[in-house]
């Protein structure tokens, strides 16, 4: 079936895969809000949400419904188009990164190999980096368009924070790239499938990436852009109803995607120990691999929440000092050591 010289089965396959990944990220983000409140309650020795449904499982639906039906307010002196554009960009950018993550190996359906990765581009990591650097626009545009000093301050904070932490993140990735020799996330996972996970070779790089991921997601202890006791709520101060929901939701999607990325790059992705010596059908192994990646991702999401309810927020000058005077030199040193070791092994 070819029309306009396009393989339409391929298009259908990809559209299906994109829909599944999108729905999956939305559902995980939705239940992360529930999980966050449960984890917070557990850490603070409370019960957490327990009214809507068994164990409060219907709580996200109730919250979502409430956000949808709330009155929508657009401030009079804001620029209307940009005010709506802000949360839209935040949401869109959050959903885009999932395109290059390999969610599993290939499934064979009716003799047709179906890769569980939307796009295996040879610049996978750079793509992620590009999308992450776009993420700041949603916050900046939303904060500026609100025509409110607190929102503007918060978006300025967000912009400088994200730019500062992008640098060590990129440097940590360079060290990983020197090790793997490939920018494709699929290749990186396949290499880990047959040897040790990258975290064994790059412990410092993993640590730097993790800290920067916290900063890029605006999660505690780096949640300065939404520091409610200084900024009355931060960049989404003027937002109501689902536009506020988009901003909050984008944060949870970002958290999910960052966790999946960390699992993919440093913890083997869909590879798990002894996966090739189980003697099972390849399709079953693929599905098990997906489950393995999902469990790793959930562990990191739990870690994100754990840190949020344990570590207090940084002061802004501490945040900048940590970014520029600790993380960047550490990342540079990591890069140098990695390079030197690779060179030493080649000779």
């Amino acid at each position, binding site marked *: 079936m070819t029309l306009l010289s396009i393989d339409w089965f391929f298009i259908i396959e990809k559209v299906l895969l994109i829909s599944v990944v999108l729905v999956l990220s939305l559902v995980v983000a939705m239940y992360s809000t529930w999980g966050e409140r449960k984890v917070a309650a557990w850490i603070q020795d409370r019960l957490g949400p327990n009214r809507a449904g068994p164990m409060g499982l219907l709580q996200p639906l109730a919250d979502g419904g409430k956000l949808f039906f709330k009155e929508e307010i657009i401030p009079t002196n804001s620029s209307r188009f940009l005010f709506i554009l802000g949360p839209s960009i935040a949401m869109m950018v959050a959903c885009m990164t999932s395109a290059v993550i390999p969610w599993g190996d290939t499934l064979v359906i009716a003799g047709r190999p179906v890769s569980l990765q939307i796009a295996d*581009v*040879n*610049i996978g990591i750079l793509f992620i980096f590009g999308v992450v650097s776009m993420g700041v626009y949603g916050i900046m545009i939303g904060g500026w368009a609100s025509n409110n000093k607190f929102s503007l301050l918060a*978006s300025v904070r967000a912009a400088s924070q994200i730019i500062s932490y992008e640098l060590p993140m990129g440097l940590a990735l360079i060290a990983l790239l020197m090790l793997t020799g490939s920018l494709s996330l699929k290749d990186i996972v396949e290499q880990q499938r047959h040897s040790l996970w990258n975290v064994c070779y790059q412990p410092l790089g993993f640590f730097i990436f993790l800290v920067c991921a916290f900063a890029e997601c605006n999660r505690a202890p780096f949640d300065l852009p939404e520091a409610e006791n200084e900024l009355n709520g931060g960049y989404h101060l003027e937002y109501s109803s689902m536009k506020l929901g988009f901003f909050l939701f984008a944060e949870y999607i970002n958290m999910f995607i960052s966790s999946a990325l960390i699992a993919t790059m440093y913890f083997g992705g869909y590879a798990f120990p002894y996966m090739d010596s189980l003697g099972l059908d390849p399709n079953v192994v693929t599905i098990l691999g997906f489950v393995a990646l999902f469990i790793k991702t959930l562990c990191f999401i739990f870690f994100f929440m754990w840190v949020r309810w344990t570590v207090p927020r940084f002061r802004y000058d501490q945040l900048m000092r940590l970014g520029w005077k600790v993380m960047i030199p550490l990342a540079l040193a990591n890069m140098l050591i990695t390079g030197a070791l690779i060179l030493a092994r080649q000779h």
Partner: protein
Amino acid sequence: MGMSIQQIIFMVLSVISLVSALGVVLSKNPVTSVLCLIVTFFTIAGHYIMMNAQFLAVVHIIVYAGAIMVLFLYVMMLMNLNAELEPQKRNWLKYAGAISGGALMVVLVAALRDASMPALSSQPTDIGLIKNLGQLLFKQYVVPFEVSSILFLSAMVGAVVIGKKD
């Protein structure tokens, strides 16, 4: 029909890039200008992808749209430019601008007319892929590459010196 999918995408991309580039020049609000410029950068990145230069496309987005334009937007937002508060420009300044802009266009058109531009080959090329680009940069053009890095270093040192002046 008679148009391949590449041609359709090229047309759409070109229209968007021209419209958004015009938006940069014509819009009254500087923040809108910056946002139009970001859209232009994205369409240019799209053109790079059409030429199979994915690395160039993504670096273009990271560097220009992701870093430089964020700083532009940052400054624009803090300046709080308002049409009412802006000092009105005098008329002769506008005429001078129009005349010098027109002169620049005449020069450009003349230069383009005389330049010999061989038609681009329609053969697919792999030169924009990261592997080939790296080989080229670090083997054939390694000296200019390193020299340009010294340029960046001096710019950085200069920025630090200016920042430390007080």
